[in-house]
C-alpha cells in the first residue's frame, strides 16, 4: 500500500535512509500543512501532490540532521523532470537546481523547496557540508 489517509494526514512510502537495502518507511503529510498549501499556496500543493511522493521513494540523496535548534530531521533530494512554477504551469526543472523535501524527526513532512546546487555538482545543494550532520543515503552517482 503506497499511502493511507488518516485523521492526521496522508502517509506516503519513503526510502528509509538508515537501511541500505532500499527498505521503506512512512512519512506523514500533515493534514494542516496539506490544507494550508491547497488553500493558501496552490503551487506548493501541486508540487507536493505531483513531485514529492516520487522524491521520497527514489531520492538522489538523503541528509540527516538539518536544523540548529532541533536534533535529527531529514532532507530528501530529488531531480524531478518537471515542476509547477505557477498553478497549472508545468515547466522543465532547471539543471542547476535541486528539489528538497524536509521531514522532521517524527517523520512529518514540513517543507518543500527548490535549492541552488553547489558547482560543479548538479546534485549537491549549496552549502551542504555546513548545513547537514550526515549524508545518510545516496545514489552512486551523487
Amino acid at each position, binding site marked *: 500500500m503506497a499511502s493511507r489517509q488518516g485523521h492526521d494526514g496522508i502517509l506516503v512510502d519513503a526510502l528509509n535512509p538508515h537501511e541500505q537495502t532500499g527498505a521503506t518507511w512512512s512519512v506523514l503529510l500533515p493534514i494542516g500543512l496539506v490544507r*494550508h498549501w491547497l488553500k*493558501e*499556496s496552490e*503551487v506548493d500543493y501541486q508540487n507536493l501532490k505531483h513531485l514529492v511522493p516520487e522524491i521520497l521513494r527514489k531520492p538522489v540523496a538523503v541528509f540527516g540532521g538539518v536544523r540548529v*535548534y532541533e536534533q535529527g530531521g531529514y532532507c530528501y533530494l530529488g531531480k524531478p523532470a518537471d*515542476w509547477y512554477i505557477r498553478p497549472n504551469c508545468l515547466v522543465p526543472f532547471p539543471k542547476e537546481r535541486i528539489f*528538497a523535501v*524536509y521531514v522532521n524527526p517524527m517523520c512529518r513532512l*514540513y517543507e518543500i523547496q527548490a535549492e541552488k546546487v553547489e558547482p560543479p555538482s548538479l546534485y549537491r545543494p549549496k552549502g551542504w557540508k555546513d548545513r547537514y550532520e550526515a549524508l545518510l543515503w545516496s545514489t552512486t552517482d551523487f
Partner: protein
Amino acid sequence: MVNNRLLEEFEAFEKEAGPPGFVARPWYNADGDCLVYKSQNVAVVAARVDDILTIYESAVDDKAIGFKIKGVKHLLQEMGCGAMAVGAATDQAGEIVTVAMVFLQAFSSDRPTIARREGYARAWETLTAPIPVFPCARVATEPA
C-alpha cells in the same frame, strides 16, 4: 509518476477541502517550527542567509518574494514567551508579539555582518502587507 491510489487520496482531500487558492500572509508551520511568508503564488528557490533566515526567490524572475524563519520556539523563548496561542492573535496575560519582533530576535541571534544585514533587509522588504501580529503573546510572568 504518482501512483493512482495516492492521486485518489489527494483528489478526495481536494473535494472535501474545496477550491485551491492563495493568501499572502505569514504562517506558522508547527511541524517545521518555522514562520513562512510568500507574497506571490509561484514556486520558490530557497536562498539561505544564515541558520535561521532563508529568503524565498521567485522561480519565475528570481526576485525575493518571501522568507522563512526557523527555530521559532527558540526565538520566542529568548523573547520571554511562555506559550503560543493557537489561532489567536491576542492574549490577555501579556504583550502581543509581532512578526517584526520575531524578525529582530532572529537577526540579533548572531553577528550583524554585512551579508546578514543585507539578507534580513531583503527579506523584510518582501512583506507588502502591514506588519502582522504573530499568534503568540509575551507573558508577563512565567508559569511556575
